[in-house]
């Protein structure tokens, strides 16, 4: 068939398709509903025309025009749109905890990498009052001691932030802590080395501070301050670490897939973990800003709330959404 005959014969179909695509580019409310069902059929016929035009070596211009139409159809047909509210609920209820349980080995490894050094450094600082100086310089130690000094009316606030309100601190915790979670995940891209380093480093820092302050006898202010948000914050850091370790594993030991494929698959799983961890960190930031800093609450109440939060978190991560396919 000559090119022009082909064009004359098929042009109405292409124009139909173009009109439909224009319709679909409009916001959903202003679309004519009945037309939409024709998309797959028109698109398939368009694909056939494009394949024919290429096979018969028609002119580049014609092939390009059809190529761009097919491209447009491809994007329209294979886009994913869903109700985001429902997806959020499904994510929190089953997607996140299910994914975490699928990768429990990575989670426990990250937990060990974090709590191991924390415990070691904590004990060292508890038994030796000067050991903290191997980690922090004297200014940092002084600032940290000031924060949790029982004489400080606002425990947990350093000197320069003494005047900051709870809400300002909420913003600060979001920016700082969720950022740390994201970086812990992302540095897994350096073959896991970055994640391991950040987990060890944070473990040593947190353990050191805890041990040093306990040794100074500041338990009352320090432990009551951190008790509330510890469940969400520490667990979220370990989950971010697990996500980073998944990336590292895909690069170092991709298994039966190619490195590229393994990485894509691991990243998809890991991003679920990171987003879950970000939500936990958001909760931790809220608790830390509005509850932990509240000096009026009795220590017993704070410890009880902490126990409730730890139990709830363990139950949630261990059991929520069991038996459902994680999607």
């Amino acid at each position: 068939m000559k090119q022009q005959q082909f064009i004359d014969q098929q042009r109405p179909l292409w124009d139909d398709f173009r009109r439909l695509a224009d319709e679909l580019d409009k916001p959903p409310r202003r679309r004519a509903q009945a037309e939409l069902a024709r998309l797959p059929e028109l698109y398939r016929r368009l694909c056939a025309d494009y394949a024919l035009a290429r096979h018969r070596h028609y002119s580049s211009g014609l092939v390009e025009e059809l190529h761009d139409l097919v491209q447009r159809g491809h994007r329209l047909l294979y886009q994913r749109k869903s109700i985001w509210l429902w997806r959020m609920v499904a994510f929190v209820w089953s997607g996140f905890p299910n994914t975490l349980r699928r990768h429990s080995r990575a989670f426990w490894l990250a937990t060990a990498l974090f709590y191991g050094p924390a415990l070691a450094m904590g004990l060292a600082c508890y038994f030796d009052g000067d050991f903290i100086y191997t980690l922090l310089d004297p200014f940092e130690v002084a600032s940290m001691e000031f924060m949790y000094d029982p004489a400080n009316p606002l425990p947990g606030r350093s000197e320069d932030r003494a005047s900051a309100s709870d809400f300002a601190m909420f913003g600060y915790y979001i920016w700082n802590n969720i950022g740390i979670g994201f970086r812990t995940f992302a540095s897994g891209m350096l073959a896991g080395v970055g994640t391991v380093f950040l987990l060890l480093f944070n473990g040593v820092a947190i353990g050191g501070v805890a041990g040093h302050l306990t040794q100074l006898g500041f338990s009352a202010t320090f432990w009551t301050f951190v008790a509330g948000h510890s469940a969400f914050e520490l667990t979220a850091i370990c989950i971010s670490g697990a996500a980073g370790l998944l990336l590292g594993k895909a690069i170092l030991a991709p298994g039966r897939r190619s490195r590229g494929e393994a990485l894509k698959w691991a990243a998809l799983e890991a991003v679920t973990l990171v987003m879950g961890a970000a939500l936990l960190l958001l909760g931790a930031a809220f608790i830390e800003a509005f509850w932990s800093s509240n000096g009026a609450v009795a220590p017993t109440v704070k410890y009880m709330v902490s126990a409730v939060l730890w139990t709830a978190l363990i139950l949630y991560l261990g059991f929520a959404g069991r038996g459902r396919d994680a999607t």
Partner: protein
Amino acid sequence: MLQLDTVHTFETPEGVDLSLRVAGPLPRALAWVLDTLIRYTVLFVLSMVLLPLAELGVGTFLIMLFLMEWFYPVLFEVTRGTTPGKKAMGLAVVHDNGTPIGWPASLIRNLLRVIDFFPVLYGLGLLSMLINRQSKRLGDLAAGTLVVYAEAARRADTTIDAEARTLPVPLAVEEQRALLDFAERSSKLAPGRVEELAEIISTERGPAAVQTVLGYARWLGNGR
């Protein structure tokens, strides 16, 4: 085979090949500069408005800082398919299979930005883009995404303004296609160049040669 064009070809489920033109480091760097400028301008304006509001303002500003730092590209990519900076450079982000980018892929490629940025100014990202055939930075590798040129829909003008002439010799398919392409593009070229090209295969000279060659093309395309 050494390829100059950065064309990425993939097959759709319908069994046809589509191709995308992948963008290299330079337009992407410029897009990033534009996005960064937009980001900091917005943050600057926000700081002017929010910071004097004391307590509540400081908290809100820090939350905005967090969102702008991590989610600015994600929001634009998922809702528009491209960020304002990329759009200005004519770029868009798509999955490897040409479909529009979704939440997971966009989150992955933008969270991993910090590693591409490492150690300074996209050092690792640039290295990865130079090594990779499809100019992917590390975030693109993990997310399975491509940054491509967003092409405007092209329309073919297939009318040939000449009297059909039969070919003096049979032509191979590739040669026939070259004639059709010549007819299609002749309206976009300078008249002198069109004549020059036509004279390669025609014994005539000047506009007459163009008419002859266009005539062959019309015979191939239209038959009469």
